[in-house]
């Protein structure tokens, strides 16, 4: 088997990437998942589906997003040429909409009249509410009460888009609990409701489906880089919460053996403090929210709370395909702390006039470390997964706290 074939041979029919993935849900949901899987397989084979998806990506989302060479960042990093894949310019401000658009078109094909989603920072919630409005579907977004408080502007956006934000008061009242609650709610509404999962986690077929929808990122970036530099980059870097922007970015490069890939988890206050979200670096295999992968958990298999200044990375799990890539060492996974991410946030704003999402700032901080290693002759493509307007408050508060 060729190296590149290895990566397209997964998942198996049950959604396994090696030992990871699969479908760990209550029996009530199994038929729904099988229905989604079949519908997705049919859609994938239907040129009309692809045509509609491509057309909306172009005219509605604003794709292709640019691949931008960042001259002043490159200079500051003092090494490899830094290119930014500008998912921040997508409609709704992040890569999330690539996926919600794909799932919404699928849901409509399946005759569902209602979408539901979980959200943490609210980015995926907004992206789902957006496509629900676009297709005239009802939309419920499950969101922890703590996040509703912290991310008030996104709650307003969802409401303006006609979605119902359902407060989740269980557990830590954040993303992990929102997803648990969404799964519970789906059990009760499974017949007319399509559950739009926001990352490459969850039960099969979500990890593979979300990765496919997000692959437009890497496909474009690869083409654009080839066009601009007439060769392939030395390295591709993306942040990893559940792992959807990273999976979309990495997947089309997997077969390119010369391209090193780095996934960046949130190291929060530092791995040693226990306050982080680095599932691969500091977790171990387990089952959470429907699939097997690396999970932050205690000795008893109870899932730990994640910690990151970036709400979108603040999740104790990671998509199963990443777990597999990590074990195969095709992708290296590293951690970036809150401090490093905030510094990168400021650096990009001041040097290039681009305010990045805090999630994406983790990838930028890693690029800073790798730039000299890769060297001036090389190039690094960083996935700028979203814009940082949503993070102004968090960063300013953080700076304030640090000054004290």
């Amino acid at each position: 088997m060729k190296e590149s074939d290895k990566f397209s041979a997964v998942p198996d029919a049950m959604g396994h990437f090696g030992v990871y993935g699969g479908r760990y849900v209550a029996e009530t949901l199994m038929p729904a998942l099988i229905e989604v899987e079949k519908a997705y397989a049919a859609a994938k084979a239907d040129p009309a589906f692809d045509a509609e998806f491509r057309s909306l990506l172009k005219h509605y989302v604003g794709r292709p997003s640019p691949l931008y060479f960042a001259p002043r960042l490159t200079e500051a990093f003092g090494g490899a040429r830094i290119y930014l894949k500008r998912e921040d310019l997508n409609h709704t401000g992040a890569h999330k909409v690539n996926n919600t658009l794909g799932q919404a078109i699928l849901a409509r094909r399946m005759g569902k009249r209602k979408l539901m989603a979980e959200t943490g920072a609210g980015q995926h919630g907004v992206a789902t509410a957006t496509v629900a409005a676009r297709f005239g579907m009802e939309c419920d977004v499950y969101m922890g009460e703590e996040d509703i408080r912290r991310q008030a502007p996104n709650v307003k956006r969802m409401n303006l888009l006609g979605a119902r934000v359902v407060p989740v008061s269980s557990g830590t009242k954040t993303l992990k609990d929102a997803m648990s609650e969404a799964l519970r709610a789906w059990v009760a509404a499974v017949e007319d409701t399509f559950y739009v999962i926001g990352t490459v986690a969850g039960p099969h077929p979500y990890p593979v489906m979300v990765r496919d929808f997000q692959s437009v990122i890497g496909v474009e970036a690869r083409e654009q880089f080839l066009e601009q530099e007439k060769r392939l980059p030395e390295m591709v870097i993306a942040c990893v919460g559940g792992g959807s922007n990273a999976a979309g970015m990495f997947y089309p490069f997997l077969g390119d053996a010369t391209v090193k890939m780095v996934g960046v988890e949130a190291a929060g206050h530092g791995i040693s403090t226990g306050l982080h979200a680095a599932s691969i670096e500091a977790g171990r295999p387990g089952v959470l929210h429907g699939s097997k992968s690396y999970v932050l958990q205690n000795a008893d298999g109870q899932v730990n709370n994640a910690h990151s200044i970036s709400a979108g990375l603040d999740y104790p799990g990671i998509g199963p395909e990443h777990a597999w890539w990590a074990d195969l060492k095709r992708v290296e996974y590293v951690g970036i702390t809150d401090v490093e991410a905030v510094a990168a946030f400021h650096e990009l704003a001041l040097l290039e006039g681009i305010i990045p999402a805090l999630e994406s700032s983790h990838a930028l901080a890693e690029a800073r470390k790798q730039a000299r290693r890769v060297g001036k002759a090389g190039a690094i493509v960083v996935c700028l997964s979203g814009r940082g307007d949503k993070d102004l408050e968090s960063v300013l508060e953080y700076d304030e706290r640090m000054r004290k």
Partner: protein
Amino acid sequence: MSRIEKTFKVLKDQNRKALVGFLMGGDPDMEASEKHCREALANGVDVLELGVPFSDPTADGPVIQLAGQRSLAAGTNVAAVLALAKRLRKDFETPIVLFGYVNPFFSYGYARLAKEAAAAGVDAFLVVDLPFEESGEFRQHLDPLGLDFISLVAPTTPDNRLGVILKAARGFVYYIMVKGVTGARVDIPADVAGHLDRLKKHTVLPVAAGFGVSNGSQAKDAARHADGVVVGSALVRAATEGRLAALVREIRQSLDG
């Protein structure tokens, strides 16, 4: 003959329905939990589902979620629930089913878990988020030790799938009556009879119907087409409110009456 088989056989012979009772192990702490279990067993529960708490119980309603949180806060883990089962087994011959989510079991290690469970006198496992397709590895460890893996079937489960699941079923079959999470509901859904009949075509195992049964009359209703009923949230709540024995007796009488 396993304890579960024996229990259902005896009940059948007596033309009675089984009362399968759920309590969360370690809720609100191990001492109180053991007291509740003994109360339930002493007052008429035929099969004890002993919950192993999990941080993210995606199929449970608020009552069992909170029970799990109390239990975890008290430091409960798999080993502690196994120890509880072992103590109960000393005094009762009632079948004990460990009920939980896969991650704590996976984390404990299937091999070690199966061995210790068997030694503790546990009869079966019911793992909410381990559907048929993913259950192979765990079953491999259970089967040789005579531990049953209880299969769940839902109203959404289509016929072709029923056949596959039930072919591999052991002990008894758990029929989830409602599309929704655990928790007491007011009415037993109208379609239960039809689904149970459909199910019976695929298996000779006894079937217990659950999710949403909260009192004697509902239990009687639900049991009409099944071999038993499962009562969970209602028992958990009753235990909290100090009326567990009474509720178990009420349901028992209603089922037997």
